[in-house]
C-alpha cells in the first residue's frame, strides 16, 4: 500500500496534533488523569505538567524600575557596578522568597536602570525597603568559642566586624596572575584601606578573614602573610565562573550604588484573574463568531478552515508553553487578534478559489491554483506585519526603541501568531482540503 503525499502530511499533522494535545492539557481534566510519558528532553520534563507562565498583570505583584545613581563612579566602572548591583539585588529578592522574579538591567543614555518584577508580593513597601538598600561590604573576623573539652572542635560564635569596609576597596577583578595560573580574584584597596588591611592581615596570619555582603559571608580566605601594599589575591580552586561571581559580589561593595524608585506598579492579583476570565469568554465568543462566519460564507471549505483555526489555537498554546512566552493581558489580546487574522490566508485562498471556479476550471485545478496564486499576496502582506512586529519586539534591545515588557509581549505573540497561522492556514488546511474536500465541477453555463 502506498500513501499519497497529502496522506503523509496528514499523518504528520495528526501526530503533531496528538503531541500538542499532550503538552497543552493539564495532568488532570475533571476526574480523569491523563497518563504522562516519562520522557526528558534537556530541561524539558514531559512527565510533569508544563505550565503556562503568567505575567505580573495576571498573577499580581509589584513591578519596579530602579534608577542607579552612578554619579560618583568613573565611566569605566559603571557597567561593572551595574552588574554587581543586579547580582546583589537579585540575591535580596531571592531572600524574600519571591519565585520566578525577574530582574533586568537597562541603560538609556546616562541612565542606568534595574527593572524588577516581583510576582505575588503584596507588601511592596517592606519588600522595596529591603531591596532598595545600598550594598554593604564588611571585612570581619570569625569568632570561635573553644570546645567544652579539649577534643571538641571549636564552636562558631559569629563575626566581629573590622574597620575595613567596602568604601576602602577600590575594585575587585578576576586574575590569572597567581602562582598556579588558576583563576583567582584580585583586590585593590584605596589608600584609606591599605593600612587597615595591612593591620588585619598582620594580626590574622594563618587565620581566616571573612568578607560579608549585606551581613552574609561571600568568601572566607585564610591570610597567608601580611600585605602592606594594598593589593591582595584570593586564590582557591575557582572555576572562571566562580571567580567572576565572587568579583561581581565584591564590586557591589567596592562600587556602592544608591538606588531610587523611578516607577512602581502594584497589581492586585484579583484584578488579573477577573480580566483573564473575561478575556477568555470574549475569545470563545469571538472564535465562535469567526467559525460561524467562515462556514456561512464558504460552506464545507469554511468548516475545514475552522478545523485549521482550532489547531492554530492549540499549536499556539503549545509554543507559548514551550518557549515559554510570559502571558500578559495585552498578550492575550494579541493572541485573540491573531485568531481573527489567522483566517486571512484562508479567505484569500477561498476567494481565489471561487474566482477560478467562475473562470470555469474543474474544482481540483481551481484549488491548487488558488493556493499557488494567493501565496504571493500572503507572503508580501505577512512580511510587512513581521517587520512591524520586529520593531515592536526590539530583539536587539536598542535603547532608542521601546523596551517595555507589555509592548514586547504583545509583539512576540503577534509574530508567533503569524508563523503558526501560515502553517495552519496553508499547510494544514491545504492538505485537509486535498483529502476531504470533494467539489462539484459544474461548468457554469451562462
Amino acid at each position, binding site marked *: 500500500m502506498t500513501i499519497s503525499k497529502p496522506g503523509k502530511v496528514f499523518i504528520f499533522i495528526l501526530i503533531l496534533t496528538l503531541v500538542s494535545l499532550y503538552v497543552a492539557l493539564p495532568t488532570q481534566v475533571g476526574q480523569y488523569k491523563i497518563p504522562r510519558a516519562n520522557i526528558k528532553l534537556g530541561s524539558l520534563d514531559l512527565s510533569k505538567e508544563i505550565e503556562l507562565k503568567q505575567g505580573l*498583570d495576571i498573577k499580581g505583584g509589584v513591578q519596579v524600575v530602579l*534608577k542607579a545613581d552612578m554619579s560618583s563612579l568613573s565611566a569605566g566602572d559603571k557597567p561593572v557596578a551595574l552588574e554587581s548591583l543586579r547580582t546583589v539585588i537579585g540575591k535580596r529578592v531571592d531572600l524574600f522568597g519571591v519565585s520566578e522574579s525577574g530582574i533586568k538591567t537597562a541603560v*538609556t543614555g546616562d541612565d542606568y536602570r534595574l527593572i524588577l518584577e516581583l510576582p505575588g508580593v503584596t507588601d*511592596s*513597601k517592606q519588600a*522595596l525597603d529591603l531591596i532598595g538598600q545600598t550594598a554593604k561590604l564588611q571585612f570581619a573576623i570569625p569568632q570561635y568559642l573553644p570546645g567544652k573539652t579539649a577534643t571538641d572542635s571549636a564552636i562558631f560564635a559569629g563575626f566581629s566586624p573590622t574597620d575595613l569596609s567596602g568604601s576602602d576597596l577600590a575594585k575587585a577583578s578576576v586574575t590569572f596572575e597567581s602562582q598556579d595560573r588558576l583563576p583567582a580574584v584580585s583586590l585593590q584597596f584605596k589608600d584609606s584601606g591599605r593600612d587597615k588591611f595591612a593591620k588585619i592581615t598582620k594580626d590574622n596570619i594563618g587565620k581566616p578573614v571573612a568578607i560579608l555582603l549585606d551581613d552574609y559571608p561571600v568568601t572566607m580566605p585564610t591570610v597567608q602573610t601580611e600585605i602592606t601594599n594594598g593589593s591582595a589575591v584570593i586564590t582557591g580552586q575557582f572555576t572562571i565562573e566562580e571567580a567572576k561571581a565572587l568579583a561581581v559580589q565584591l564590586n557591589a561593595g567596592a562600587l556602592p550604588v544608591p538606588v531610587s524608585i*523611578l*516607577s*512602581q*506598579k*502594584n497589581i492586585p492579583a484579583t*484584578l488579573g484573574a*477577573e480580566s483573564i476570565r*473575561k*478575556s477568555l*469568554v*470574549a*475569545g470563545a465568543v*469571538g472564535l465562535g*463568531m*469567526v467559525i460561524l*462566519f*467562515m462556514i456561512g*460564507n464558504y460552506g464545507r471549505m469554511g468548516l475545514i478552515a475552522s478545523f485549521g483555526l482550532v489547531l492554530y489555537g492549540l499549536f499556539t498554546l503549545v509554543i507559548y508553553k514551550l518557549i515559554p512566552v510570559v502571558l500578559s*493581558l*495585552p498578550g492575550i*489580546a*494579541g493572541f*485573540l487578534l491573531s*485568531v*481573527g*487574522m489567522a*483566517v*486571512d490566508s484562508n*479567505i*484569500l485562498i477561498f*476567494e481565489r478559489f471561487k*474566482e477560478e471556479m467562475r473562470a470555469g476550471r474543474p474544482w481540483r485545478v481551481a484549488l491548487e491554483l488558488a493556493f499557488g*496564486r494567493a501565496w*504571493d*499576496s500572503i507572503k*508580501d*502582506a505577512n*512580511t*510587512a*506585519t513581521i*517587520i*512591524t*512586529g520586529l*520593531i*515592536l519586539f526590539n530583539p536587539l534591545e536598542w535603547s*532608542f526603541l*521601546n*523596551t*517595555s515588557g*507589555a*509592548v514586547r509581549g*504583545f*509583539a512576540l505573540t*503577534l509574530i508567533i501568531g503569524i508563523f503558526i497561522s501560515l502553517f495552519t492556514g496553508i499547510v494544514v488546511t491545504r492538505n485537509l482540503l486535498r483529502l476531504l474536500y470533494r467539489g462539484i465541477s459544474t461548468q457554469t453555463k451562462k
Partner: protein
Amino acid sequence: MNWMKHLSLYFILSALVIIPGIYSLARYGLKLSIEFTGGSRITLVSMNSSAEDVLQSFKEYSPTIESNDKDGITLKMKEISQDNAQKIVDTTKPYNPDAKMTSFETIGPALGGETVRKTINALAISSLILLAYISFTFKQLKYGISAVIAMFHDTIVLIGSFSLLGHFYGIEVDLLFVTAVLTILSFSVHDTIVVYDRIRELSHKHKNIEYASLVNQAVTETIVRSLNNSLTIIFMLIALFLIGGETTKFFALALLIGTITGTYSSTFTAAPLLLVWNRYFEKSR
C-alpha cells in the same frame, strides 16, 4: 462596477473623519496616561468619606478622580511615594477604619518623556522600512509612497478619534494605545499590499489595459476578501471590547477603529492614490 470614478468622493469622506480629529488634536491634544506624563495612580477601597473629601486629603498632589465605583476609588495625581500615600490614607483612618490601598502605581516624569520619544522613533522607523520594502517589492516608488500615505491616513484617524474620545469621554492614551497604533500600521499595509499585489498580477496578464481600469479590476476582485477578513477581526475585537477584561477594553476599541479605517483606506485611499500619482507624475500613460 467602476470604483475609481468617484475618487474625490473617497478623499472627501476621509477628510470628513480626519479634519475633526486633527482639530481636536490641535485644540485638546490627547489625554495622556501617567505612563507618558509621569505621576501616580492609586486605588482605595472601603472609603466611607465622600470622593470630595478624599480629593481634599490629597490636595497637595493635585489629584483627579479617574473612577469611583464598587471596585473602589481611583485617583490620579502628581508623583507621590507609596509611603506618603499610605500616610495620607492613615490620617483618614478615624472616618475610614477599613480603608486600604489596593493598587499603587507611580512613574517618574523622565520615564514618561522617554516613552514618547521611543514611540515616535518606532513610528518613524516602521514607516521608513515599510516604504522601502513596498517600493522594492513592487519595483516602483509610487506603491511605497501611496501605501505609506494610506498608513498615515489610518494613524491620523486613530489618533484623532482618541483625541475626541479623550475630550468627550475622558479615555486615556496609554502604552497599549501605542501598541495598537503600531499594529494598525501593519494591518493597514497588510491590507493594502493584497490590493497592490492584484494590480501587479493583472498588469502582467493584460499589458495593454489602461491603468485606471486595471486598478479598478483589482479593487473589484479583492474587496470581498478585504471585507470578509476585516469582519473576522472585527468580530474578535467587538467581543473583546464588550465582554473582555477592563484592562484591554480601550486597546480593543483602538484596534477596532484602526481595523475599520485600515480596511477603508486600502481600497479607497491606497488604490486611488496610485491613480492620482499617475495623473500628475506619469503623464505618458
